């Protein structure tokens, strides 16, 4: 399990990470490139618009200036006589040609009295102390003075005043005042082209507001003062982004500031960043999922394979047969090989098990067969002796016992026989031996009630009893052999006890060791029983030997009860 997870990690994590890094870099690069592109493009466009607005202003003021120059030239060369009517008709002509001129009038520079005016207007003369346009023109005789824009109900207008020197006699110096319509220039660039809140603002050189569509331009002024002239800048005003262009207006002392809304640029940048980030994220996520899917298709079968391999530990060779593994061809091939290997192993194991079984059976048969001839010869010898002595009754009884004994021994070829039969078998044996050895010993057999249902491997009591008779009986004493069968916990317990010579502890120890040691052939009978119950009942079955010198020997056979409930199948 840990291995497959690390395969997934090894593949998915670094790969996803580097891919994500790549995507992030691409997104960043794209954003930066797009940002600088769109910014420089829109800046260039806005600069062009600004320059267009400025060009309109320049053209407009150039035309204003030409008018002013014409008047100045004319005044210098005009004869003093008839100035009034000459200029009035000149003014009327100019105004008929130039629609942007609203009013023209000429004043004496010395006393401010009206010299001439266009027919339509009614000037009342200039005050020598109050009228700023008049005073400024006198102060700055070389330049055109522009008065601030006035907004009337129907138009914007501004005034131009210019000092006119009359060289031959300075007492005839004059000041001309021309009112221009500013509405046209304001309307040339509709504010809609400058975007929401876009506008242009005119300041004089001390940053007093000359013209603005808004009343309060304090915040804008800060930016304009910072920029002064010429260059442009991106600014934020009242929550909107603007492109600000500031410069001087030719032939005037005015400053022009143009604010163009660039919210759309900012929002385009933002939405582009958002969209490309989302796309990038989507690409990374779907890449990771695809990768994860692919890796799963590799790692899942391997995981399944490893789970099945883990089942080998529990010796379940049939595990592979249950699952069909899908995956890459390598993994399928691996699985097929594994399945083949497992089924081959299963076959081999089955063979091994049946082989072992056969071996066990034949061994069992052989061991059982070991017993019979040995006893038969002895008994037949005893019968011959009885017949020789003419004790025919005894001989007959012995033959009957022998016959029963063998019948039980054979038990129709069954290895496992009812427990009572086995007891009966031992009894017949004891009877035979008792007769053979001339009643030199007595025996008791106790079977606890309720043992009728049990079956045991046959010929387990007789060899022990044989030992007791053969080695256990003291000469000159009446030996007693006791056989007891009962239940002890999960076990059936058989107790074979004698009161013979017994054995030294070292001998007991030697005997115990010989039981499980296959290379030692001592105590043929006991070992034979031990091996047989071990073969049949497994390691739970046991044979215990207790012995004390000159007291007797006690052999206990323990058989697990649940293994003894059925006869031979």
């Amino acid at each position, binding site marked *: 399990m840990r291995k497959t997870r690390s395969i997934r990690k090894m593949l998915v994590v670094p790969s996803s990470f580097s891919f994500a890094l790549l995507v992030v870099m691409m997104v960043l690069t794209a954003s930066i490139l797009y940002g600088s592109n769109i910014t420089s493009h829109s800046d260039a466009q806005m600069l062009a618009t600004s320059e267009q607005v400025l060009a309109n202003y320049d053209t407009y003021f150039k035309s204003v200036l030409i008018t002013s120059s014409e008047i100045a030239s004319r005044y210098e060369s005009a004869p003093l006589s008839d100035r009034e009517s000459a200029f009035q008709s000149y003014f009327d002509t100019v105004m008929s040609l130039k629609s942007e001129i609203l009013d023209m009038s000429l004043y004496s520079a010395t006393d401010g009295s009206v010299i001439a005016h266009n027919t339509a207007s009614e000037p009342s003369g200039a005050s020598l102390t109050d009228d700023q346009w008049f005073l400024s023109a006198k102060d700055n005789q070389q330049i055109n003075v522009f008065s601030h824009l006035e907004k009337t109900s129907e138009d914007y207008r501004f005034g131009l005043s210019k000092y006119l020197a009359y*060289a*031959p006699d300075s007492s005839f110096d004059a000041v001309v005042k021309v009112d221009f319509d500013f509405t046209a220039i304001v309307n040339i660039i509709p504010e809609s082209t400058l975007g929401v809140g876009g506008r242009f603002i005119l300041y004089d050189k001390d940053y007093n507001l000359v013209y603005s569509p808004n009343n309060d331009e304090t915040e804008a002024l800060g930016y304009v003062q910072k920029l002064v002239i010429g260059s442009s800048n991106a600014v934020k005003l009242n929550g909107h982004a603007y492109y600000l262009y500031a410069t*001087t207006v030719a*032939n005037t002392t005015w400053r022009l500031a143009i604010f163009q809304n660039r919210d759309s640029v900012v929002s385009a940048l933002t939405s582009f960043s958002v969209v490309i980030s989302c796309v990038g994220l989507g690409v990374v996520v779907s890449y990771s999922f695809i990768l994860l899917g692919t890796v799963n298709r590799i790692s899942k079968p391997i995981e399944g394979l490893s789970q099945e391999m883990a089942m080998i530990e529990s010796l379940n060779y049939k595990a592979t047969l249950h699952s069909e593994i899908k995956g890459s061809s390598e993994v399928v091939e691996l699985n097929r090989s594994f399945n083949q290997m497992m089924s081959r192993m299963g076959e081999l194991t089955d063979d091994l098990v049946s082989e072992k079984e056969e071996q066990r059976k034949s061994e069992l048969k052989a061991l059982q067969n070991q017993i019979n001839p040995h006893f038969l010869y002895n008994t037949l010898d005893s019968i011959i002796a009885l017949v020789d002595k003419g004790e025919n009754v005894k001989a007959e009884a012995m033959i009957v016992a022998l016959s029963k004994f063998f019948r039980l021994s054979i038990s129709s070829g069954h290895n496992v026989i009812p427990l009572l039969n086995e007891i009966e078998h031992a009894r017949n044996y004891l009877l035979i031996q008792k007769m053979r050895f001339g009643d030199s010993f007595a025996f008791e057999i106790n079977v606890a009630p309720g043992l009728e249902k049990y079956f045991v491997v046959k010929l387990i009591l007789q060899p022990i009893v044989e030992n007791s008779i053969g080695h256990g009986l003291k000469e000159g004493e009446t030996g007693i052999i006791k056989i007891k069968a009962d239940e002890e916990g999960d076990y059936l317990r058989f107790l074979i006890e004698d009161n013979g010579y017994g054995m030294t502890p070292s001998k007991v120890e030697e005997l115990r060791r010989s039981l499980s040691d296959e290379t030692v052939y001592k105590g043929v009978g006991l070992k034979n029983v031990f091996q047989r119950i071990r073969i049949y009942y497994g390691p739970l079955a046991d044979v215990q030997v207790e012995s004390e010198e000159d007291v007797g020997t006690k052999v206990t056979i323990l058989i697990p009860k649940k293994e003894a409930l059925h006869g031979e199948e």
Partner: protein
Amino acid sequence: MAKNRIRILALLPLLSVASCSSKGTYVGLYVYDVSDVFMSSFQSEIVKDLEDVYPSDTVAQDGAGSQATQNAQFVKDLDSGKVTAAVVNTVDRLASSALIEKAESKQVPLVFINREPLQEDLRKDAWSIEHCFYVGGNPAVEGAEQAEIARSILGSPSEFAASVYDKNHDGKIQLAILKGEQGHQDSEGRTTNALEGLSDYQVDTVKSVYCNWSLSQAYAATKALSGENIELMIANNDAMALGAIQALQEADAAAGVPLSTFSLRHYPIIGCDGTTEGRKAVRYGYMTGTVLNDYVSQSKVVVDLLRYLISNEAIPTYDSTVEVKGNAYYVAGPKIVAEP
């Protein structure tokens, strides 16, 4: 915004390198229009003089007649930080106050040439009084000298009526004036002072026309005057005087009149600036006289002022040819007439 920051961060090392390498003194030079003959000579002279003091490969920036263009050039250079001081020949003298404001924000001293800022702009605050100057010709002297040239030809007011120059014998001078540009201090100053110098004559100004310092405009204006009785022409500069001469010469050529009789057939024409072409015309007798607008001396004054502004050298003092008024230095030049 973030992107801007990134870009600015990326540029920072470059900027610092750039500012280090241009640590030396660089004097920015801005000319209203290098196609103007006089200004072209003037700016070459300044570049030449600067080489000796602040060698920095100064190249004059051409405003090409647009104040907006000049504003952009000026602001770009000042913002880049490479300019130690600037010499400016504005397109529009009224833009000076904005240029001073910008220069003050960058602490770059200015010397204006040829187009004089209003005194109120030049001395608008303590900084500008310390750091902004004007150097140009002396229009009052130039105008007066033009009048003197006229007087030496026309004779005294009492003699004039009897001279050949009073063509219609009315005792008045029929005068045509070719003016530079409206609002230019030299144009207005020269005209006013020339007329003042002739105020004891009876002057009848037939025509006063702005030709924007331009030969071709003066040529057209002079053609328009044909048929009028003109007894004297005063031009604010040589280029316009030459335009007038060209118009008259072409009319003569069309009529089959030889050039040698030019000065006898036409009215005296007086120019100003003393350009090479102008002096040639004087030598040949087509132009009666001109007044030197002494850009060589003016250039010296400009460099002197720069040395004061940049290197804290003593503020220069001059003889009577240089009139100092506030922050303005007016350099007078001699009149140039044909050798007798």
